[in-house]
């Protein structure tokens, strides 16, 4: 142990004695690790933000529609031709599905919303059954969501997202006020809790009205069809419930046994999984490209260590003549390269995180330091010191003491 700590101190001393050289190597590693960490932290933050957006969908809930997602043009073109899911489907599933707890059909349209002389264009207007609020984790900030009575009597009531409240009713109580959706008047009965932005897009620019009011205003669901949000009786029976619904839907939609489903079923988890798969290549490539700078940093380390070994040949000879073993010399040079890359790596991890945080804040994503990214950064930079330092260190360790002593 006394030997190790002494050699460790020797390595540190050698680095300090060669400030310019150590500084250059250190900088190379800092750049490399910073670029990788920036990309990694940013990507991780972005994925995390998307995951968070899906959290409102509970773990026992799944969604059915003719198209939930499309990650390629072919997929999109195939799915867009499918027969829309009609409103009656919800009743059919309600009747036949044993493992379904709640079924909530929804319809979507875009419309202009106005209040007085202010207006917002292209706002998503969702027609939903009253039980939607029970299935999805949508929090009410003020007032209430519509009831099944509102739906039954086709009342013109609206539950608004926070962006609409902010635009029309800043400093004013919105409840009871009348807004227009398209030409029709609706009474505001509730405001949703603010969800904030994701990648610069507001997530609060929507309005929810009773399903019956929606069909009256926007007509029978067209191409897009109905979205069904279904809650299984328990998390454990989610898959069984999905199988049940699949069977009911195939029968109802008369899909021949040889054909694949003509509808999509997704849980929050499966959507995220597909998103992860879809972005995997992109993420790997971007980390890979930034990784090149790490390799360059490693080559800088190796280059500098080679120069250092050559310059210090006599020193190595002296050490060997007084009894330094190969492993002592090897360790001294390895400690030097690892100290450089690890300290450069630590600074790079910090800098990378700060840069990623600044970048992400431009896209309204907040990122937290991730233990995975930090430990990966430190392990990788240590590894670089080891991998690119081992060859020069071995070269030093294997020097013939006689030749090394005679070296000028």
């Amino acid at each position: 142990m006394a030997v190790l700590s002494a050699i460790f101190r020797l390595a540190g001393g050698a680095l300090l004695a060669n400030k310019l050289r150590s500084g250059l190597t250190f900088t190379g590693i800092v750049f490399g690790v910073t670029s990788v960490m920036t990309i990694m932290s940013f990507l991780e933050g972005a994925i995390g933000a998307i995951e968070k957006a899906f959290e409102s969908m509970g773990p026992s809930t799944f969604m059915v529609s003719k198209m939930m997602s499309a990650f390629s043009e072919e997929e999109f073109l195939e799915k867009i031709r499918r027969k829309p899911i009609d409103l009656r489907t919800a009743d059919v599933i309600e009747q036949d599905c044993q493992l379904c707890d709640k079924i909530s059909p929804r319809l979507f349209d875009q419309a202009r919303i106005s209040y007085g002389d202010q207006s917002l264009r292209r706002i998503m207007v969702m027609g939903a059954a009253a039980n939607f609020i029970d299935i999805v984790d949508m929090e009410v900030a003020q007032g209430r969501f519509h009831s099944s009575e509102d739906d039954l009597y086709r009342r013109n009531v609206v539950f608004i997202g926070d962006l609409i409240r902010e635009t029309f009713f800043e400093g004013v109580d919105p409840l009871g006020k009348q807004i227009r959706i398209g030409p029709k008047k609706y009474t505001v009965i509730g405001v949703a809790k603010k969800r904030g932005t994701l990648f610069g897009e507001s997530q609060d620019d929507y309005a929810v009205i009773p399903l019956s009011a929606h069909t009256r205003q926007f007509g029978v669901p067209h191409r897009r069809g109905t979205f069904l949000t279904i809650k299984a009786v328990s998390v454990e029976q989610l898959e069984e419930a999905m199988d049940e619904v699949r069977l009911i839907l195939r029968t109802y939609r008369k899909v021949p046994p040889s054909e694949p489903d003509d509808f999509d079923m997704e849980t929050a988890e499966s959507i995220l999984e597909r998103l992860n798969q879809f972005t995997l290549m992109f993420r790997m490539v971007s980390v890979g490209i930034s990784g090149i700078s790490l390799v360059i940093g490693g080559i800088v380390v190796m280059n500098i260590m080679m120069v250092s070994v050559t310059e210090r040949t006599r020193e190595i000879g002296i050490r060997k003549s007084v009894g330094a073993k190969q492993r002592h010399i090897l360790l001294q040079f390895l400690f030097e390269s690892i100290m450089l890359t690890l300290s450069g790596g630590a600074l790079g991890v910090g800098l990378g995180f700060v840069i990623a945080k600044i970048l992400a804040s431009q896209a309204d994503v907040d990122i937290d330091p991730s233990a995975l990214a930090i430990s990966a950064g430190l392990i990788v930079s240590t590894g670089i010191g080891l991998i690119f330092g081992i060859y020069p260190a071995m070269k030093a360790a294997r020097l013939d003491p006689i030749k090394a002593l005679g070296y000028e």
Partner: protein
Amino acid sequence: MPLIETDNLWKTYAMGSERIHALRSVSMAIEKGEYVAIMGPSGSGKSTLMNLIGCLDTPTKGEYWLNDKRVREMNDNELANIRNREIGFVFQVFNLLPRASALHNVELPLIYNGTPKGEREKMARMALERVELGDRMSHKPSELSGGQRQRVAVARALVNSPSLILADEPTGNLDSKTSEEIMKLFDHLHREGNTIITVTHEATVARHAKRVLSILDGRIASDEAIPEEQRNGVH
């Protein structure tokens, strides 16, 4: 049992297709406490012999025992161990670490045998005091005179209490006055009971020893004791 014993020692180098015999069948013995000079012109093989005796190299053929240890078949690590424990080197060009203080230079051998820091420093101080450099411990080699540098090197050779002090042209880079100073230091160390071998081509240096081995063309040409009245430095 002598401290050093060689039997039919050969060292052969391959230079292209030619084979160069730097040492040819060297057999000799040196007892503990002896003061021996190895003399010979350049190219005689005396440096090769010194490298073998100093365990910096292994012979091509023949046997070498140092302090009862058979050196011939030792690996790198074992040779390093022997150099660390049994041998103290003093070189012509001092071979001190230029950036390290005198104290750190003297500590060096102790680092590699795991002596704890505190003890290391204590031993190095004592060794520096023995060569009368107690007031120069924190000086770097560049801040010391040639003679002082060589005394630091002697202190480094002594610090581990080796069984053998091996000096290669220890005065080759010093003026005659300083040379005399260093040689007196060796005489003193000899009187204290240390075994000393100096490799030199200077007769004045060799005459400090009690016995001279002359090497010529890789062989021992003569092995003579120096009569007391011809010796330098005893008067």
